[in-house]
């Protein structure tokens, strides 16, 4: 049992710290915060990381990744969050990329991986359907063979960023025989294909991120299928475990909690600051302890991965606890903002009134309600844990 860093790791930490110090963090953060410039800011930031060779920390070097150890990834994430720098978008780099280099053909690797690394393609995820949420395997979007193409019909929903996307990775039904999981294939579909329609889904936070995606006789070349026909569920599952670990967002929660701490030391009520309020202190420290534990739960998962054990069922635990902590932080933040948490920007913003964090607290709280739903709802994660970890 040892969590100390080696001399090389300490040198690496200094290098990372220095990189973030010189990176255009505040510029891109400002761009990303505004819906109109979100895409521009994201791509600019990702290209900056790409130029440094750090865009894909966990990808193997042979595919253009950094090939870092779990400890290096941890150091990088800690420094990124300390610098207030944005995370990368997960869909290409953390989700479909690993599926392509693990299960894809040589031709697929050459075609897609470099463009993912360079952020030349924007990816989105076509999993959920109107009738297939937690019961994902019941999905109905069909893909029928027509010569060397599939003809895809159906619809996907809750698709984050589909309105920006160049490509969508999709689970489609290619067979109705056997168990529902057995007739699913994994397709990569160009979003400019004729027959695709994207429709926005307005959400509680007032920011456009979710969409419905409709497929009407969309032609997809067979060479865009990952792996074997009807084996897509296997590839999808490996991705889901990664997705859950990503969703935990431990480092980001640390930063959010620190921001709350800073606000609470300034925000007054009567003759004291909120940091002295006993109920606030109680709520804050309860979250803090849970987050301190979660940080080490994540380290334990990383260390297990370094020993060659992939993220398995324990990733459900990270997802559940990680999102519970996120929501507890959102709740504490909007309560700390008090009456200034409910301001919708008009001629005055919450920042104009002197409560710059109120607006962010409201958006985070509203968007954050989704955290316990996406990536497999927390109730489903508990089912998975009960079955696969506890053997109940």
């Amino acid at each position, binding site marked *: 049992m040892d969590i100390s860093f080696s001399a090389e790791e300490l040198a690496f930490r200094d290098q990372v710290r220095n990189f973030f110090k010189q990176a255009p963090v505040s510029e891109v953060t400002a761009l990303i915060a505004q819906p109109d410039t979100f895409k521009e800011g994201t791509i600019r930031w990702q290209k900056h990381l790409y130029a440094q060779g750090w865009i894909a920390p966990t990808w193997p070097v042979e595919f253009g990744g950094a090939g870092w150890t779990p400890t290096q990834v941890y150091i990088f994430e800690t420094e990124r969050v300390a610098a207030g720098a944005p995370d990368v978008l997960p869909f290409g780099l953390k989700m479909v990329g690993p599926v392509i280099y693990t299960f894809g053909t040589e031709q697929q690797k050459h075609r897609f991986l470099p463009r993912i690394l360079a952020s030349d393609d924007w990816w989105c995820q076509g999993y959920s359907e109107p009738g297939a949420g937690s019961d994902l395997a019941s999905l109905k979007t069909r893909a029928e063979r027509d010569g060397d193409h599939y003809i895809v019909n159906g619809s996907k929903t809750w698709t984050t960023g589909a309105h920006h996307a160049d490509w969508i990775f999709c689970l489609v039904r290619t067979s109705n025989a056997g168990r529902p999981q057995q007739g699913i294939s994994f397709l990569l579909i160009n979003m400019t294909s004729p027959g695709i329609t994207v429709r926005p889904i307005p959400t509680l936070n007032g920011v456009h991120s979710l969409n419905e995606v409709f497929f009407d006789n969309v032609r997809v070349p067979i060479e865009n299928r990952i792996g074997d026909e009807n084996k897509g569920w296997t590839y999808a599952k490996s991705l889901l475990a990664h997705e859950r670990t990503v969703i935990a967002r431990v480092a980001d929660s640390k930063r959010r909690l620190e921001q709350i701490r800073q606000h609470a030391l300034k925000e007054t009520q009567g003759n004291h600051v909120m940091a002295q309020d006993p109920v606030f202190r109680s709520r804050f420290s309860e979250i803090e302890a849970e987050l301190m534990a979660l940080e*080490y*739960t994540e380290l334990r998962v990383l260390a297990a991965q370094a020993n060659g054990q992939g993220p398995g069922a324990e990733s459900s635990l990270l997802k559940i606890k990680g999102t519970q902590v996120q929501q507890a932080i959102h709740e504490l933040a909007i309560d700390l903002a008090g009456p200034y948490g409910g301001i919708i920007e008009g001629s005055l913003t919450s920042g104009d009134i002197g409560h710059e964090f109120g607006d962010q607290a409201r958006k985070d709280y509203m968007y954050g309600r989704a955290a316990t739903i996406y990536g497999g709802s927390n109730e489903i994660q508990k089912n998975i844990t009960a079955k696969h970890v506890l*053997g109940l």
Partner: protein
Amino acid sequence: MHFNLSEEQAMLQASSARFIAQQYPFEVRQQDVARANGFNPATWATFAELGWLSVPISEAGGGFGGSAADTMVLMEELGKGLVAAPYLATVMLFGRLIDLGAPESLKKSYLEPLIAGQLQGAFAYQERQSRYSLSDVKTTASRKGENYVLSGEKTLVMNGAGADQLIVVARTSGGQFDTSGISLFVIDANAAGVYTNSYRLMDGQLVANILLDNLTVAASQLLGEEGKGYELIEKVVNSAVLALSAEALGIMNKLSEATQEYTKARKQFGAPISSFQVLQHRMVDMFMACEQTRSLLYRAVCSVETSDADRSLHALKLMIGRNGRMIGSEAIQLHGGMGVTDELDVGHYVKRLMVINTLFGDADHHQQRLAQISLTK
């Protein structure tokens, strides 16, 4: 970075697990704890033979020189077995105080018999009014020539009735709540002027109130410098909290697993009750609470003597209290009517967890300490 056990730790874990599986079933524990001093001297002799009494004692003190992680491994297994033995009082408190505080000339005379299993010790730090404050000390020690004279009453002294030697906290100067002016004395439990009244706690252990009535103690029995005892107390209590937390985690895991096993075997409505989703989710909550607590234990163990040590320790004891309570209550609830019987071991594990929560500060106390560190500029 890794969380693997060393070869020695793995051996210690295996030997303690084997002892509990082969020699320490629940019925034996119940007999042991009911004995005169709340433990079985034969069990203690086995501990000495297996080398467990030397684990946290330094090599200079004749011990194994084990780390916090070594102690953790042993204590977690003792927790799983609900072992009734004064390991905390004699080794983690008395032994460690001697090891860290006594001059070299004195060390061996206490630690050699302690490691051999022939000396029982106790640490008398609490008083009626002190609750969880370690610096609230009314017991006085006044210098009289080559001696000190001690007066006052200590409460809830673990192993106080079974101990041969006691370390007593007394005030040599300063006000009742000051951290300075606190001194430690090693005294003979059978000396004239020491009056012991013993009673049991809900976990079965025997504790004592110890009245010191103008007890004369040679100045040579002072541990460390006069008036500077608080720092030593904090250091030793912190390591005891780690050990106690490991024991608690062992209990929590045991309760969580026992509940899973019971619900798999128990049938109602023609099905094992473990197949009911509402119970499955509650058992997942218990499991997650165990894992989160384990993470904090690892954090605290890895953070000893770093700037993160105090925060980690407070967060850990907070979570031991909260999650221990939750797991205990859920274990009883999911065992149904059986859960409230004295016959089943579950309730006894729960009672031990409840006592652990009240040792060296409960969850509320440590939560406030954590907030003091975090929410100050």
